[in-house]
């Protein structure tokens, strides 16, 4: 595949800002990919996602990988360069969802339903979530037998448990998120002055 390297890619900058990670610190060792439990299903291994970001390849947003990421944090925990890979995956998902570019449809659907349940009742209403998910993802009968068994074991209830809706809260969150894409990390970075060799002027 051919694409133009974009060292100043806006997309890369956005990911770095939102995730508070520096993709150029990755030296492509692949340890993230080696340990990823879902790696076998992914279209690009995690290290390649980081590589694509390094090169400013905005195709990343169309990758399936972030949607297959289980947020298990194995990559983050073991990265020798201390890059929070899982957070970068989150960030790509956040951006892809806002731009409606998610490569795997089911998962954003599930998210929407899950959040709807939350917004309406304050908690997750499993039967509703499962039912609605199957409906929207057109997997109508998926998990029905399991659901029935769960129901019989007294594990699923047919009426939602509600503690009141969260419409107000959700509205405020959305407003705040839409008002600006900003980078919230205000942690002071401690710079070891011996490290920066050529500090030109003050």
């Amino acid at each position, binding site marked *: 595949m051919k694409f133009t390297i974009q060292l100043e890619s806006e997309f890369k900058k956005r990911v770095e800002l939102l995730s508070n990670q520096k993709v150029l610190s990755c030296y492509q*060792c692949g340890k993230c990919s080696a*340990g990823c439990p879902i790696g076998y299903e992914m279209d690009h291994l995690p290290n390649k996602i980081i590589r694509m970001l390094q090169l400013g390849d905005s195709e990343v947003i169309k990758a399936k990988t972030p949607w297959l990421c289980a947020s298990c944090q194995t990559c983050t925990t073991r990265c*020798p360069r201390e890059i929070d890979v899982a957070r970068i995956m989150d960030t790509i998902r956040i951006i892809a969802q806002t731009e409606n570019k998610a490569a795997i449809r089911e998962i954003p659907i599930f998210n929407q339903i899950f959040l709807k349940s939350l917004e309406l009742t304050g908690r997750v209403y499993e039967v509703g979530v499962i039912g609605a998910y199957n409906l929207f993802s057109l997997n109508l009968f998926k998990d029905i037998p399991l659901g029935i068994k769960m129901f019989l074991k007294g594990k699923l209830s047919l009426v939602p448990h509600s503690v009141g809706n969260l419409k107000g809260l959700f509205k405020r969150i959305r407003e705040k998120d839409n008002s600006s894409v900003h980078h919230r990390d205000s942690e002071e970075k401690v710079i070891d002055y011996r490290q920066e060799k050529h500090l030109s002027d003050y």
Partner: protein
Amino acid sequence: MSKTGVFICHCGSNIAGVVAVEKVVESAKTLPGVKVAMDYKYMCSDPGQNLIINTIKEQALDRVVVGSCSPRMHENTFRMTIERAGLNPYRLEIANLREHVSWVHSEKASATDKAIKLVELAVAKVRRNEPLQKIYAEIEKRALVIGGGIAGIQAALDIAANGYKVTLVEREPSIGGRMSQLDKTFPTMDCSACILTPKMVAVAQNKDITLLTYAEVEQVHGYVGNFEVNINKKARFVSMTKCIGCGVCTEKCPSKKRLSEFNANIATRKAIYTPFPQAVPNIPVIDKDSCMYFATGKCKVCEKVCPAGAVDYTQEDEIITEKFGAIVVATGYDLYDHSSYGEYGYGEIPDVITGLQLERMINSGGPTGGHIKRPSDGKEPETVVFIQCVGSRDDAKGKPYCSRVCCMYTAKQALLLREHYPNSKAIVFYMDIRAAGKGYEEFIQRVQTEYGVLYLRGRVSRIYEKKDHLLVKGVDTLSGNQVEIKADMVVLATGLKPKKEAQNLAQLLHIGYDQNGFYTELHPKLAPVETQIAGVYLAGCCQSPKDIPDTVAQSSATAAKVGALLSKERLEIEPMISEVNPLLCSGCRMCYNACPYGAIEMEDTEIRRGEIRCVAKVLVSVCKGCGVCVAGCYCKAIDLKGWTDRQLMEQIKVISYC
């Protein structure tokens, strides 16, 4: 009133082409304290220098300013000139009229104004110049080498070859260091013992080398040429003079076995032991902590069986104090302890071993007689996975640097495995291959193509312990695939780190260490074996990871430096150094803490009659004249000769009112 002479040089047309030299001379004549001012075409030429000498004599000048090229060119020349006229050479200042005026300014009027100013500046400074005396120190013509690995051995032999006495102090019972633990050495694959043992013996037999094994440096005082060092010779409990090295004691010792440090913990040793058969000296020590006699008061078997009556339980540590002119630090390295790698089993999976352990196994003189046996069941492994950069290039583990030798030793070990067991498989996980030595890249190529060792590019995420094998989960980033390998044994190429307690020694010697704990050289390019402490030198892996060829080269370089130092009659020391006025010093220790060279001592001093206070004192032969202390002293008690506060103040005043 001082009598200053000002000499302005035309430098052909280099200066005179831009600067109106006669105007500079005229103006100089009006400056306070100036007795004469003149110009000449080439001041540095013989007639020019003679002009200065004659004028000094005729006019009884006591200070000189030369307006010429940069002091970096000819300051020394003119110092010698005025010395020949009988002046103190430090009563000279140079006004840089070429590099800082005529060559960088084209407008004649303003360039001349600036030249006038710079001469005024120099005159102002020279007025405050004190006569300074060159400082000399005696040199003790003996060297101390700390650490008896290949680095220390080579340095000691080379220094002795230069004709100086050397004392070699080694912490362990035998010299030899890590190299004595290795099997073959890359890239030529010669046997480590075959090339090392003769050198060890040469050390023992050299009449100019005093070998102190099982000994450690405890205290260091003094400075270049005159170090006074306390060495603790630990009790060996075996007489060095009586023991004949027969080994009967070790054989008969009934103590519980301890893990053998020399064999990287894959074998055991007794309480009375020599680390390895070719040890130098070949005299055992009793390890008090494992000996039954020291624990319970019963046993004494070794004493009974010793044919030479060499065992002596009453021996005590002995402190030896000696003087040395130079010190070589060659304390080597330790290996990264992989028990912090949870993903590789916290060092608890028996069949995950280190490169050094493999060296011991593969060595025919080692505890397995040269057979590779996996620790869990003694089986000969078929598939061996090597993982590079363990505890190196890993910021998360606090080890950001490359250990420089593990790429090569991994390749060597993979080759040896394939050579020993042609049916075996060797798989190496690497990130990059660093093979920048002579013949190294060719070696790596050979290992891959001729020996069929498979190289996969990527780090391993985790090793899983299965019932009778290990499952290695890695990646090959080149093909973009995850890989899972069923392995019989995993060898970790653990990185090199500074010797434990390396920092203590650094503090004893006042030498620096970097953020990784390796000792810092004076200059990374141009003074790689010197330290910031004059007379203390580095060799080998204590300075940074390196292989044997580089270690030996560095050690010989160190020996050359030591030779250059010890061959001097006496030491000449630049006099532009700091000096404390004890009356003003409050004893705040600011300078003591700031000095990068440890040149300041706090000492009880009699300030006035009857008043004793602890004040700062500058060690004349240690101070390098950086002035860091001066700028930090709130009491203005310390000043830098040749760059005093008053001199700088005068200069500031002159420029500031332009």
